[in-house]
C-alpha cells in the first residue's frame, strides 16, 4: 500500500511541478464556466428587479385595440414592452443587442374589427435564443386580444339574430361594450394554471452557472482523467515502466500507483471546481455532500478507467493525446455536458445511455437541480461503477508494459 501511495504521490508531484498544469486544471474550466454560465442565463435573478426580456414595440396603429395589446403585454411574465418609434427601435435592435422588435401595423384594429386577419411581425436578432421566449409572450398576448374580439363579435352576432341593429353606430357601440366586458372577464379568468416545481435546493431553480458548472466539470475532468492514457504511453515509450519492473515491485502495484495518482488529481480537480463554482458563481451543489462525493468518486473512477483503456490501445504519444482530446470532447458533448439532453430526439437520448458521461451528468444535475441525497444517487453511482469495472478489466487485459 505504501508503494502505491508513493507512486501516486510521485505522479502528482510531477504533474504539479509545471505551473502550466493549473491552466487546464483550474483556470480554463473557470473561464469556460463564467462565459457559458453568462450565455446560458447568468446568476439567479434578483426577485425585486424586472428581469423580463425587453421587447421593442412600434405601434403604428395607435388605437384602443393596439393599446389593449400593449397593456396585455405589460402583464407578461416573459416580456417587457418598450414603446419606441420605428427608426429608434430598429437602431436599438441592431446596435444594442435587444432580442426583438414587435410592430403593430397601421390598420391593425380596422382589420380585426372587419374580421380580417392581421400578421404581427416580430423581428429578431439572428439565432438569438431569447427570441423563442419573446415569440411565446407575443403569441399569448395576441391570443388574449384575439379572444376578446371573438367574444365581442359572437355577442354582436347573438344580438343580431334576435333583433337587427337600427343603425351602424348602435352596432359599434354594442360591440365596444362587449369588447370592454370581454377584456375585463379575460383579465380575471374563472380557471387558472398553477405551476410548481418538484423540490429543488434553490427556490428559484437552477441559474445559468449551475447549469454550466456540472457540464464544464465533466468536460475538464475528463481531459485530466482520460489523460491517464498519455501518462501510461509516455512511461511505456520512455521505459519507466520497464525500469520499475526490475525493482521488487509487482505489476499490479505499479499500475495501482499510477491509477491512484491520476484519480487523486481528478478528485482534487473536482473538489477545486466545486469550491470555485460555489465561491465565484454562487453554485448550490445540493443538500447532500455525501451524495455529491459519491457521484464525484464514481465518475472519477469511470473516467480514470477509460484513460487506462485508451492507454492500453494507444501506441504513440500523439495517438494518446489525439484520443484524449477526441474522447473527452465527444463524450462530454454527447453525454449532455454541452447541451441538455431533453432538447434532443428520444432516439438520441436512448442511444447516449451507453456513455458514462450521460450518467455522470444525471448524477450531477440530480444533486444540483433536484437536491438528491445518497439514496437517490445510488443507481447513477452503480452504473458509473459498472463502467469503471468494465473499462478497468478490458484496459488491464489489453495493457502492455513494454
Amino acid at each position, binding site marked *: 500500500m505504501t508503494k502505491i501511495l508513493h507512486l501516486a504521490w510521485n505522479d502528482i508531484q510531477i504533474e504539479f511541478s509545471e505551473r502550466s498544469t493549473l491552466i487546464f486544471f483550474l483556470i480554463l474550466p473557470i473561464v469556460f464556466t463564467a462565459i457559458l454560465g453568462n450565455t446560458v442565463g447568468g446568476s439567479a435573478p434578483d426577485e425585486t428587479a424586472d428581469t423580463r426580456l425587453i421587447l421593442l414595440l412600434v405601434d403604428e396603429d395607435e388605437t384602443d385595440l393596439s393599446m389593449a395589446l400593449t397593456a396585455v403585454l405589460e402583464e407578461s411574465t416573459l416580456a417587457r414592452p418598450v414603446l419606441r418609434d420605428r427608426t429608434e427601435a430598429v437602431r436599438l435592435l441592431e446596435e444594442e443587442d435587444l432580442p426583438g422588435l414587435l410592430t403593430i401595423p397601421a390598420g391593425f384594429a380596422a382589420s380585426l374589427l372587419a374580421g380580417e386577419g392581421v400578421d404581427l411581425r416580430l423581428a429578431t436578432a439572428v439565432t438569438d435564443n431569447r427570441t423563442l421566449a419573446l415569440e411565446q409572450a407575443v403569441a399569448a398576448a395576441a391570443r388574449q386580444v384575439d379572444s376578446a374580439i371573438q367574444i365581442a*363579435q359572437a355577442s354582436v352576432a347573438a344580438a343580431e339574430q334576435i333583433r337587427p341593429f337600427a343603425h351602424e353606430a348602435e352596432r359599434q357601440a354594442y360591440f365596444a361594450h362587449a369588447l370592454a366586458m370581454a377584456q375585463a372577464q379575460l383579465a380575471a379568468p374563472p380557471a387558472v394554471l398553477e405551476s410548481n416545481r418538484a423540490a429543488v435546493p434553490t427556490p428559484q431553480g437552477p441559474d445559468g452557472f449551475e447549469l454550466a458548472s456540472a457540464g464544464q466539470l465533466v468536460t475538464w475532468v475528463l481531459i485530466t482523467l482520460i489523460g491517464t492514457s498519455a501518462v501510461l504511453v509516455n512511461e511505456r515509450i520512455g521505459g519507466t515502466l520497464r525500469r520499475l519492473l526490475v525493482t521488487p515491485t509487482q505489476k499490479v502495484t505499479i499500475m495501482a500507483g499510477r491509477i491512484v495518482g491520476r484519480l487523486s488529481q481528478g478528485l482534487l480537480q473536482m473538489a477545486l471546481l466545486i469550491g470555485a463554482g460555489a465561491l465565484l458563481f454562487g453554485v448550490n451543489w445540493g443538500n447532500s455532500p455525501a451524495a455529491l462525493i459519491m457521484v464525484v468518486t464514481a465518475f472519477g473512477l469511470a473516467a480514470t478507467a477509460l484513460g487506462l483503456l485508451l492507454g492500453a490501445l494507444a501506441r504513440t504519444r500523439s495517438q494518446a493525446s489525439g484520443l484524449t482530446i477526441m474522447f473527452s470532447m465527444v463524450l462530454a458533448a454527447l453525454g449532455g455536458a454541452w447541451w441538455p439532453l431533453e432538447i434532443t430526439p428520444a432516439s438520441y437520448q436512448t442511444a447516449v445511455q451507453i456513455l458514462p458521461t450521460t450518467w455522470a451528468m444525471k448524477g450531477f444535475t440530480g444533486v444540483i437541480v433536484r437536491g438528491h441525497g445518497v439514496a437517490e444517487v445510488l443507481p447513477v453511482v452503480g452504473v458509473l461503477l459498472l463502467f469503471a469495472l468494465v473499462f478497468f478489466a478490458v484496459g488491464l487485459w489489453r495493457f502492455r508494459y513494454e
Partner: protein
Amino acid sequence: MKPILNIAWKDLIVLFRDPGALALLLLAPFALTLAMSAAFGRDGNPGISDIPVLIVNHDTGKFGELLVEVMASEELAELITTTVAANETAARASVDRDEVAAVVIIHAGLSQSIIPDQAEPDRGVVELYLNPTRPISGGVVQAIVSQFLQQINTGAAGGQVAVGQLMQNQLITPAEAQTLGPVIGEAAGRQSVEGQLISVSRQFQTENDTANGFDWMGYMAPSMAILFLMFTVVEGGRSILTERDNGTLPRMLTAPLSAAQVLGGKLLGTYLNGLAQVGILIGASVLIFNIRWESALGVVLTIVSVVAAATGWGACIAAFARSSGQANVVGTTLALVFAIGAGNFFARPNLPDWLQLVSFISPNAWGLEAFTSLTAGAGVSDLLPYLAGMWIMAAILFGLATLAFRRQVV
C-alpha cells in the same frame, strides 16, 4: 523553393500516416459535427418529442375530461405521451424520480368554475407539477395546458358577455339565459381557436433587413473545423520545437539549406496540413449534411485565409515558446480560449458584445463571421473585410514570428 516544398510535403505525409493525429485532425471535429447534427438536426431547432406526462383528473365535470382527451389526442401524440394516473401522490413521485417531465393535476371544481351552479363559484385550478431537470419539456406542457385553459376561459367569458348584454338590452329573459349561455360560450370558445385573426411571424433582422434564416449545420460544421484547425497549427508549431529538442533541426541546418528555408518548409507544411484538414472537413460536410453556400469561390478564399491566419498563430507560438511542452500548453490554451470566446461552441450572437469584439484577435472569429456571411448568401465582395482581416492577422503574426526566429537562429 524546392527544399521548402520537400520539407512541407514530408510533414504532410508524416501527419496523414499518424492515426492518432488523424483522430484529432479529422475524426474528432467530424464526430462532434455528427453529434450536433443528431442532437439538433439541420436547423438547430431542438427535436423535442415524446415528452412523458402524467395526468390526474379530480374534476367530475366535462372540462376535466376534455383536458384529458386533449392531452391524449392524436394531434399531440408526437409531442407528448400522456398517461392517465389515478394516484396523485404516486404521480408526483414519478416526477421526483425523473421518470416524467410533468404531472397535470386537474383539481376538483374546474368544470363548476366554468359553468357555475352558484353565484360566487370557486376559481378552477389546473396544477402542473414540473420536473426541474426538464425545464424545456415543462414549458411545452405548460403552453398546451395554458392554451386549453384560455379556450375554456374564452368560452366562459363569451357566454357571460353575450348573455349579459342580451339581458341588459332586454333581448332575452333570465330563463332563456340559462340555455343560451353555454351555447354562445361554446361557439365563442371554438371560434377563438379556429378563427384566430392575429398571427405572429418571426423574422430575422439582418443588416440589410433580409429574412435569411440560420443554418445550424452551416455554422457548426466550419466551426468545428476551425476549432480543430487551431490544434493542428499548434501541433505544427510544436513540431518545430520538437525537431530542435531532438536535434533534427540542427542536423537539417548542416545541409545546404538556409534557416529560412527550413522554417519556411515547416510552416508551409503546417499550412498545407491545415488546408487539407479544413478542406476535407468542409467538403465532407457539404456532401453529408448538404450544406449549401452560394459562393464556392468565397468558401475557398475563406478556407485559404483562415488557415493562413491560424498558421500565423502556430508560427508565433513556436517562435516564442521555450520548449515543445510550453508550446503545447500555450497553444492548447489559446485554441480553447479562442474557441469559447469566438463562438465555436454556440452561435456568436449569443456571446456578449464585448466578447464578440475582443474575439477578433482570433482567426476563429473572422472565419466564423465569413462562413456566417456565406451561409446568408454573401458573395466574394461581401467577404473582403473578413478576408482582409485574416490576411492582416497572418502578416502581423508571421512578421513577429520571423523576428523571433531570426533572433533564435542568430
